[in-house]
C-alpha cells in the first residue's frame, strides 16, 4: 500500500516536473505490455532473469530490467515500483525477491512482489537490498510509465504521456497510437493529440499541416512544447516565414500565460514567507506589543516548541501522521509554562525597567540555548514530516503549491483568528487589554494585575511554542533555531505598529511578499538588505509603525 502511494507521489512529480531524462531507448512493440495475464507466461525464463537481477552490477541491471519488461509486461509493475522506492530486497540464502517495509515497531516485513502475499518478519542479516542508482531509477520510471500508459489509472496515464512528450521517438509514438486506439478519456486524448502535433511540426514539410499543429500547441504550458517552439525559432534553417510568425505568436501567448502564473507563484511564496513571519511574530505581538516587555528569549520559546515536536514524535513513533496534532497543544503548554516561569521569576521584578529586562531576557535566551545543547546535543534533531504534509498540489504544469506551505499559511491564519477572539471576546482578553491600557486603573477596578501579567506572558510564549511546531516542518530543529527568527519577529511587530495585532498580520504579509518579489531580481542576500533598509526609512518617517495606537491609551 505504501509503495503504491509512493509511486503515486512520484507520478505526481512526473506530471509537474516533466523529466529531462529520455523515456528510454529500448522500447519495442512488445514493450507495450500484452494483455496476457502474468500467470500464463512461461515462468522459467523469468526466474532466471530475476535471479540475475540480484547478482547484476548496476550497469547490467538495466539490460535485465528491459528483458523483464519485455517478458512480463504489466506483471512487473510491482517489482519495478518496489525497486524504484528502494524497497526491493532478496533473501541471502534462497535468493527470493521480496518487497520489504518497516512496520512502526521497526521490524522488516517482507511480502511477495507479484502476489503481495505476506512473508513475515525478516531479520536484518538474512536479506540484502537490490542496489539501484539514478540511472536505473530513471530507467525504472520510464518502464513504469510505459506500463501505466496501457493499464494505469487516469492520472498515471496522463503522467506517462507527459513523460513521452520529452522523447517523441517513433517507438514512443507507436506506443501512443496503441494507447489512443484503446480509447481514452478527454484529457489523455488531448495530450496524445498534442504529442502528434509536436511530431507533425517537427517532421512534416507541408506548411498547412504544420500551421494547424502550431494551432494545437498554442496556449499549452507543458515545457516540451515551449522548448520545441523556441528551438524552431532559434533554428536558422527554418525558412518558412508563415511558420516562423505562427510559432512566434504561439510562443508569445504561452509566455504571457506563464508570466501570469509566475506572478501567482511569487505571490504564494510571498504569502507563505509572510505566514512564517506572522507565526514567529504573533507571540511577540502579545508580550512586546501588548505588555511592552522586550523579550529577547522569544526565539527560544519558538525553539522549545520545535523541540517539543521532536520529543512528541519520539514518544509516538507509530503514529507520525498524528504527531503534529498532539504537538500543537503540547508545545503550547511547554512554552507557555516556561513563559509563566520567566515572568514570575524574572520579569515581574524588573517592571518598568526596559533596559534591564532586555539584558535579563537575553541572558535567559542563552541559558535556554545551552540547556538544550546539554540535554539534546548541539546537533540538529530530525523531525519527520508526515505524509499528508509533503508533496505538491499541481494546478497546471507551471504553477503548483506545496502542501506544507499551504497548511502553514492556513494554520497561521487560524492561530491569528483564535488569538484575536481570545483578546476580544474572553474575560482574560478584557483584563489583558485593561491592564495594558492603564495598569493602575485596572488594579483599582479589582483586576488582579499580577495574575493577568503572568497569563498574558504565558499566552504569548505558548503561541511562540505553537509557531515552533510549524517551523519544525520547514527548517532545522537545533539550538540556534530561535536566534534566526528573533530579529524578523521584532521587525514585523515594530513595522505593523506596537500593540496592534492587525498590524502584525499586515506587517508580516507585506514584508513576506515584498521580499519574495524582490528576490528573483536581486538575489536572496540583497533582497533581505533592501527590505531592512526600507524598513529603517519607514520607521524614521512613521516611528509608530503601520497602524499606530491612537488616543490616550497610546501614551
Amino acid at each position: 500500500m505504501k509503495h503504491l502511494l509512493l509511486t503515486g507521489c512520484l507520478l505526481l512529480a512526473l506530471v509537474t516536473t516533466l523529466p529531462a531524462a529520455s523515456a528510454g531507448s529500448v522500447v519495442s512493440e512488445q514493450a507495450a505490455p500484452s494483455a496476457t495475464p502474468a500467470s500464463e507466461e512461461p515462468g522459467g525464463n523469468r526466474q532466471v532473469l530475476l535471479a540475475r537481477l540480484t547478482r547484476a552490477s548496476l550497469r547490467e541491471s538495466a539490460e535485465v530490467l528491459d528483458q523483464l519488461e519485455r517478458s512480463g509486461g504489466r506483471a512487473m509493475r510491482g517489482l519495478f515500483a518496489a525497486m524504484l522506492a528502494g524497497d526491493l530486497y532478496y533473501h541471502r540464502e534462497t535468493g527470493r525477491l521480496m518487497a520489504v517495509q518497516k512496520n512502526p515497531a521497526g521490524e522488516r516485513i517482507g511480502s511477495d512482489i507479484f502476489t503481495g502475499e505476506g512473508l513475515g518478519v525478516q531479520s536484518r542479516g538474512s536479506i540484502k537490498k537490490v542496489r539501484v542508482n539514478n540511472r536505473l531509477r530513471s530507467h525504472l520510471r520510464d518502464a513504469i510509465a510505459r506500463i501505466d500508459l496501457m493499464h494505469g489509472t487516469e492520472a498515471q496515464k496522463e503522467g506517462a504521456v507527459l513523460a513521452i512528450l520529452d522523447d517523441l521517438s517513433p517507438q514512443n509514438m507507436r506506443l501512443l497510437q496503441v494507447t489512443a486506439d484503446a480509447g481514452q478519456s478527454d484529457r489523455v486524448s488531448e495530450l496524445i493529440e498534442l504529442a502528434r502535433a509536436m511530431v507533425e511540426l517537427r517532421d512534416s514539410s507541408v506548411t498547412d499541416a504544420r500551421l494547424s499543429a502550431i494551432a494545437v500547441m498554442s496556449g499549452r504550458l507543458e515545457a516540451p512544447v515551449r522548448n520545441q517552439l523556441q528551438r524552431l525559432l532559434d533554428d536558422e534553417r527554418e525558412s518558412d516565414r508563415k511558420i516562423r510568425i505562427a510559432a512566434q505568436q504561439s510562443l508569445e501567448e504561452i509566455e504571457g500565460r506563464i508570466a501570469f502564473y509566475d506572478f501567482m507563484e511569487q505571490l504564494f511564496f510571498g504569502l507563505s514567507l509572510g505566514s512564517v513571519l506572522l507565526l514567529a511574530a504573533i507571540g511577540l505581538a502579545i508580550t512586546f506589543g501588548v505588555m511592552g516587555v522586550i523579550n529577547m528569549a522569544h526565539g527560544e520559546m519558538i525553539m522549545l516548541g520545535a523541540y517539543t515536536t521532536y520529543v512528541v514524535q519520539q514518544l509516538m513513533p507509530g503514529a507520525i501522521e498524528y504527531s503534529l496534532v498532539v504537538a500543537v497543544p503540547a508545545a503550547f503548554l511547554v512554552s507557555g509554562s516556561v513563559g509563566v516561569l520567566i515572568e514570575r521569576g524574572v520579569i515581574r521584578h524588573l517592571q518598568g525597567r526596559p533596559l534591564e529586562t532586555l539584558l535579563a531576557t537575553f541572558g535567559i535566551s542563552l541559558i535556554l540555548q545551552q540547556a538544550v545543547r546539554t540535554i539534546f546535543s548541539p546537533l540538529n534533531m530530525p523531525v519527520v514530516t508526515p505524509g499528508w504534509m509533503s508533496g505538491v498540489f499541481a494546478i497546471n504544469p507551471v504553477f503548483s503549491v506545496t502542501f506544507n506551505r499551504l497548511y502553514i499559511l492556513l494554520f497561521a491564519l487560524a492561530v491569528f483568528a483564535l488569538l484575536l477572539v481570545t483578546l476580544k471576546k474572553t474575560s482574560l482578553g478584557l483584563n489583558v487589554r485593561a491592564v495594558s491600557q492603564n495598569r493602575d486603573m485596572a488594579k483599582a477596578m479589582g483586576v488582579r494585575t499580577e495574575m493577568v501579567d503572568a497569563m498574558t506572558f504565558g499566552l504569548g510564549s505558548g503561541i511562540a511554542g505553537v509557531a515552533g511546531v510549524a517551523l519544525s516542518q520547514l527548517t532545522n530543529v537545533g539550538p540556534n533555531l530561535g536566534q534566526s527568527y528573533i530579529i524578523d519577529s521584532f521587525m514585523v511587530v515594530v513595522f505593523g505598529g506596537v500593540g496592534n495585532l492587525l498590524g502584525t498580520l499586515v506587517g508580516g504579509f507585506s514584508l513576506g511578499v515584498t521580499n519574495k518579489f524582490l528576490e528573483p531580481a536581486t538575489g536572496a542576500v540583497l533582497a533581505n538588505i533592501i527590505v531592512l533598509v526600507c524598513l529603517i526609512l519607514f520607521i524614521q518617517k512613521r516611528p509608530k509603525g503601520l497602524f499606530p495606537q491612537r488616543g490616550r491609551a497610546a501614551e
Partner: protein
Amino acid sequence: MNVKKFVAGMALAAGTSVLSAAVMAADTIKVGVLHSLSGTMAISETTLKDTVLMMVDEQNRKGGLLGKKLEAVVVDPASDWPLFAEKTRELLTKEKVDVIFGCWTSVSRKSVLPVIEELNGLMFYPVQYEGEESSKNVFYTGASPNQQAIPAVDYLMNDLEVERWVLAGTDYVYPRTTNKILEAYLEAKGVDKKDIMVNYTPFGHSDWQSIVADIKKFGGAGKKTAVVSTINGDANVPFYKELANQGVSAEDIPVVAFSVGEEELSGIDTRPLVGHLAAWNYFQGVDSEANERFIQEWKKFTGDEKRVTNDPMEATYIGFNMWAKAVEKAETTDVDAVEQAMIGIEFPNLSGGVAKMNKNHHLSKPVFIGEIQDDGQFEVVWETDGLVAGDAWSDFLPGSKDLIADWTAPIKCGNYNTKAKACGGQGQ
C-alpha cells in the same frame, strides 16, 4: 682567528644543547585543538575536537611520541572569527603547543593565518576549501577544488551528460571562489554562459521556495540539468526538503554537494534525498579494513552506536598520523624541522590507497562520488582511477594559473610565479 671561530662554535653548540635540554625537560608534547565548541559551527567542529582527542588517546596508548606523552589543549573559539586569532596566540605563546589541529570555515583560517605565520606555529587544516593559498605554517589535509569540485563536475558532464548547470552556494569566500573556478572550467569545456545559473544565499537561509522554483524552471529547458551545491551547514536541510516538496527528484535534477556529509545527513529524514550526490575523499560506507576499525574505535570512544564518521574526520586522522610520523622522523617537535620532514610523508587512507603530503602542503588523495541512501549513508557510484594531487593554486583562474607552491629548497615559496620565476604572485 681559528680559535675564535672554534670558541664561537662551541658557544653556539652549548647554547643549542642547553636549549634542546630545556625542550627535553618539558615532559609532554602539547597538541592544541582549535575547534568551535559553541555557536553556529559547533555542530560540525565538535566532532573534530573529539576526533583529535581520540587520536591523542590512541597515540598515548602506543607510548606517545619521542618517549613523551601527548597532552591535548582544547580551546573554544566559539564560531567567532577574530577569536580564532586570539586563541591561536594564546595556544602558541601561553600554552606553547607544538602543533595545532583546527579551523573549519575559510574565514576562520584566514584569521588564524597572520598569527601563526608571525609566531611560526604549525597548523593542520582538515576541511575541504577553495584553494588559492599555501602557507609555510599550515598543512591542508582537506580537498582543494581540483580534488572535489572539478572531478564532480567531470562526473556529471561525462556520466550523467549534464548540459545545464546551477551553481548554488552560501554567500562567503569558499563558495564564491569555488564557483568562480567552476565557471571558468565549464566555459573552458564549451558550456554556454546561458547554461550556467549562479545563485547565492545568506548563511542559515531557510526559505528556498523561489530558488527551487527557479531551478525547476531553469531545468525545464529540455537539457539535462544539475545543481552544484556549495551551500554550507544548516541551510542544506530546508533546501533538500523544499526540493523534495516541489517534486524535484534526483533523476530529474541531481544535486551534487560539497559540504554535505554523513554528519549533516544524520539530522534529516533522508528518504526524499535518495539519489542526490556528494563528492568527498572519504565516505563512511567505503569498504576497507582500516575504515571498519576506525568506525568501531570512534563508536567506542564516543559511546554512541549511532555516531557517524565523515570526510573532515578522515582528514584529521591522516593529518595527525602524518604529523606523528614526521615528528619521529625529525626526532624533534621543532616547527621548521617537522615542516620539512612532513613533505613526502605517506600514510594509508581510510578509504584505501596511500595519501602523500606534497611539496605544496596539500595531499594526494582519491576522489569519490556517492549517492545518498535512505539510511543516511552514501553508496559510492564513481571514483577516480588513482590519487589526485591537491592544487594550491587553480589552473582555471587567470590570476593563479602560473602560480605554484613549493616549500622545498630552493624555491621555498607559497606563491611562486613560474613565468616570472619569482616568489610573490597574486591569486584571486
